[in-house]
């Protein structure tokens, strides 16, 4: 949390000082207001003993008090203004910094944090910090100032009454500490148990067909009852404990008033205390108790902010391992070459890819096939530098990809991910994602190549709205649109990460045919699960457990590569494979 404070601007610190000044002003005026009441009581008492008292004197005092009230009001408004300003501009800066930081991350850092966690950190945690800064400025400063002033006022007026106050404060602290020692661990366990309820319910929902097929509704309900009972018990425990707080505080506060009055009676009898002093003393004592309560509440509030602050700082202090190169200008060739590339994930012991070497030239198609976990996707992720190879070299257009600026490298690449993620907006805005000035003809052509004829049938055509993630179009349509998005960019190198999986065979085939025709100068790198998708590739690389076990055309591989043959036979049928021989 403290490390985050460096993101406050210098004038924020200045403004914070101003806040402190106004808080002091507010508290001082507040105390003057209480004293004035003591003065009125003192005047009346003096009058009872024979001193003159007129209503004008009272009104004079009254007007002074009203001015004080106005002053308090103005102080608090200024404090509210500054506290809001500082805290919201702080969170704005943090949000902006965090967002641009995350954008600079490579896959390695994204995986380290996980997307879900990055999202909560950028939203909830920043809000938590904003709340904490706001509360600190508004409350945390006031409580000690108030306590300080009040203590200063009562110290010296009466030892005995001061002791009574000290004891009450201690009792109050004991009560609060006791409650929190017992309750706070339970709060965490309530959170965990709520997660469990969530889990069991989610389980029931995701497996609803299985639950019903096995007539296991009763079992699910019993499972739910167990966690439900558990959560209820913990909840009850905490609520019973917290029910102590308010009555406990009332006893302490009322007890203190009674104690002051009784002690006061003895002291006044002894002549060491004035009646009006006693009346104001009660007010100060209550102020002190309230301040200490606030301070202990802050101890509950602040740690939450600190935890959030730490989580944000973790993002901001992470530097991405993948940096821009110096920048190179190359001819648009579109060749890609792997030279003895090894890759393992950070902290992993085993290599995911071992000794990968191949070269693909302008206009050629290279395909990667292999079972799950064979490293196909990892391999192509190395080309746009989502990760850097652990050993070996990757060359694009004859130059090591680490020498390019990332933006130069990305300009050459048209990447189509497995899950065709679309952005909220329209079909047009998605297609123009890589090239904002793309012409209408270009878009229409891209749709044609990607077999996205369905767009014409949609309301608004190109301007048909797309929901976040593209959830309002089908999986196959999403894939075709994200292929079109890459086509609009007109890259030298296409990377298709299993991007045809949601298409039916017919569409898959026509799409590939169209692609071949319209992008014959571009290099195509394809990862596929289906042998049918890659039959006509110029080169097929067969991967097994991270190693290349074969490279060649379909026909060559059928003869030479056992793994490929196995895959082909299981997918196409033995007869079909033998037939193509």
């Amino acid at each position: 949390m403290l490390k985050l404070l460096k993101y406050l601007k210098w004038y924020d610190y200045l403004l914070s000082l101003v806040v402190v000044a106004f808080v002091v002003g507010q508290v001082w005026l507040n105390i003057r207001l209480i004293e004035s009441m003591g003065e009125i009581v003192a005047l009346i008492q003096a009058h009872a003993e024979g001193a003159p008292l007129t209503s004008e004197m009272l009104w004079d005092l009254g007007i002074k008090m009203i001015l004080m009230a106005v002053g308090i009001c103005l102080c608090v408004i200024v404090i509210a203004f500054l506290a809001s300003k500082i805290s919201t501009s702080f969170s704005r800066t943090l949000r902006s910094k965090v967002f641009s930081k995350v954008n600079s991350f490579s896959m390695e850092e994204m995986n380290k944090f996980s997307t879900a966690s990055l999202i909560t950190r950028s939203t909830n945690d920043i809000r938590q910090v904003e709340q904490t800064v706001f509360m600190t400025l508004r409350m945390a400063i006031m409580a000690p100032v108030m306590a300080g002033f009040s203590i200063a006022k009562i110290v010296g007026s009466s030892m005995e009454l001061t002791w009574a106050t000290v004891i009450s404060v201690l009792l109050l602290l004991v009560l609060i500490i006791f409650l929190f020692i017992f309750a706070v661990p339970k709060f965490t366990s309530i959170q965990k148990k709520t997660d469990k309820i969530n889990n069991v319910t989610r389980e029931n929902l995701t497996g609803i067909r299985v639950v019903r097929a096995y007539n296991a509704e009763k079992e699910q309900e019993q499972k739910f009852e167990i966690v439900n009972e558990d959560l209820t018990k913990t909840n009850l425990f905490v609520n019973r404990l917290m029910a102590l707080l308010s009555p406990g505080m009332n006893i302490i506060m009322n007890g203190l008033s009674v104690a002051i009055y009784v002690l006061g009676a003895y002291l006044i009898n002894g002549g060491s205390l004035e009646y009006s002093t006693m009346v104001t003393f009660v007010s100060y004592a209550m102020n002190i108790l309230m301040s200490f309560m606030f301070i202990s509440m802050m101890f509950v509030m602040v740690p939450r902010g600190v935890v959030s602050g730490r989580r944000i700082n973790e993002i901001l202090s992470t530097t991405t391992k993948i940096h821009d190169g110096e920048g190179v200008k190359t001819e648009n060739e579109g060749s890609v070459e792997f030279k003895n590339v090894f890759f393992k994930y950070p902290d992993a012991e085993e290599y995911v890819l071992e000794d990968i070497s191949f070269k693909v030239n302008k206009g050629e198609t290279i395909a990667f096939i292999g079972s799950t976990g064979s490293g196909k996707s990892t391999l192509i992720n190395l080309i746009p530098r989502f990760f850097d190879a652990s050993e070996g070299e990757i060359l694009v257009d004859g130059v090591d990809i680490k020498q390019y600026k990332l933006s130069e490298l990305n300009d050459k690449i048209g990447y189509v991910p497995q899950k065709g993620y679309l952005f909220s907006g329209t079909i047009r805005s998605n297609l123009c994602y890589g090239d904002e000035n793309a012409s209408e003809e270009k878009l229409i052509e891209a749709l044609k190549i990607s077999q996205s004829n369905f767009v014409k049938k949609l309301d608004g055509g190109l301007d048909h709205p797309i929901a976040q993630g593209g959830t309002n179009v089908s999986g196959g349509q999403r894939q075709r649109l994200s292929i079109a998005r890459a086509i609009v960019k007109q890259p030298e190198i296409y990377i298709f990460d299993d991007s045809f999986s949601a298409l039916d065979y017919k569409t898959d085939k026509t799409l590939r045919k169209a692609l071949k025709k319209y992008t014959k100068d571009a290099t195509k790198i394809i990862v596929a699960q289906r042998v049918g998708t890659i039959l006509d590739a110029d080169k097929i690389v067969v991967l097994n457990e991270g190693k290349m076990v074969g490279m060649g055309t379909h026909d060559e591989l059928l003869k030479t590569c056992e793994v490929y043959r196995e895959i082909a036979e299981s997918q196409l049928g033995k007869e079909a494979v033998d037939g193509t021989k």
Partner: protein
Amino acid sequence: MGPNKKSADKAKNFKKSFKRLILSLKPHYVSIIFGLLFAILGTVLALALPNVMKIISEEIFTAVELNISIDLQRVMTVAIWLIAMCISSALFEYLQGIIMAKISAKVTKNMRTQISEKINRLPLKYFDSQTYGDILSRVTNDVDTIGQSLNSNLSSIITCVTMVIGALVMMFVNSWQLTLITLASTPVSIVIVLLIVKFSQKYFVRQQNSLGELNGIIEENYSAHNIVKTFNAEQKAQNDFEKVNKVLYSSGFKSHFFSGILYPVMNFITNLVYVLVCVVGGIISIETPIFAITIVAFIEYMRIFNQQIGSLAQISGTVQSAVAASERVFEFLDEPEQAEENEKTAKITDVKGLVEFKNVCFGYEEGKEIIHNFSAKILPGQKVAIVGPTGAGKTTMVNLLMRFYDINSGDITIDGVSIYDMKREDVRELFGMVLQDTWVFDGTIRENIAYGSEDKTNEEIEKACSFAHIDHFIRSLPGGYDMMLDETANISQGQRQLLTIARAMVNNAPMLILDEATSSVDTRTEIQIQKAMDKLTEGRTSFVIAHRLSTIQNADQILVMRDGNIVEQGTHEQLLAKNGFYAELYNSGIQA
């Protein structure tokens, strides 16, 4: 709160939902009455305190005025009374607190149970059209909101109202003149508060909206990080982000600020009244000096009065969100359920496995029929392959056979008995099912395999596992059959598939519904799965959503689906000869 966690802040029909919430407390009315009684007792005692305190003040004040010594005996007696009062007041408050804690715990527990049971009574249609997140948030967030509100608010309302009335009475008792001054200020405060609230409301709404929008941008960019990077769109994303960030900043600032000035403005009015009370009280005291003590007690009551009015405003806010939350819970509980089937008695004991579709018409949405007049007869022990491109609606057949969905017209019979004359559970008992998305739950492997058939012995379970080629793998795991499965368990997709096959095997149903694995498993596991499935289907009438050519070729009947409808049916040879959609699929390199 994440953008997906929906929780309403305002109820659509406040009155109706509020009434229903109160009615749902009916079993606890007696305890509630006791709770409220304690709350009132505690409050009345607390209210009396300043007035009793006044006795001491008066004693001291008069003594000082007359310059005689204070009657300490009397002060002590009163003090003991005071202590007794404040202890018993606290005791009543605590009793009230634990009663309410108990009630709210019971009520929320009951609500959760109701939701959980409701889930199992709703038709599948509901779940296919709703997001899980929404239902989950009703079980947790909404029920929590209700619980918290019941726990604190129910008694707070009573306490506050008692306090307000009591404080008002005591103010009148002490001085009617000062009371009138105080009361005159109340409407002024209310009007000012309402004005500020109304004014700041629009900034709150704007803040909420831009927060939602910003969360959307963040979610989108983080999830599609690869695309943002390869399309060099970081700058564009940052620009979009900054635009919304700026709006959020200005609306956030304003809503913070306006809610921040509410308190000082109200406090100012309170202070103003305080000053008036002091001055006017002082003027009265010129004639009657003892009135100075009344001022002190009066100010104490005034403080209570103002505080409680403030709390009431706060409570009304939380009550509103509690009612909105309960509306969402009730809404879910009121969803139409599957029809009762107690009167259905048809049962098949010795199943042969003759399945007949007779002129079946079906559509997921009303008016949108996708299966038109489909008929087929599947003889005992036959294997039916369901094929078609992705998204052609192959699972529809599963939905109909298992009665997850009911057909619009026609009939489906098993051994001549209509499945609509049987209870759902009796139909489902006839089928074993292995779906492609392999569902395993938190529990041991043994529990997962014996799901729905707890009476099976260990031998039976292990035998099923050897048939499913997974016995060896399970034994190699730490803990073997007693290993806990959860998200962290290192079990591959293929192994999960084998587990669910073993589950179906243990279940030993006379008929089968299978969904073949596609591509998510490696070749070796795929062969094992295939063998396990072949073993499973031996001698059983089975429906297979097929992807593999060998399965399709060996099927006794093939149903070809396209756009939800069954477009062709027959054997492999018949369909090829027909030269229709199936032939087209097959020739375009069917690796289906």
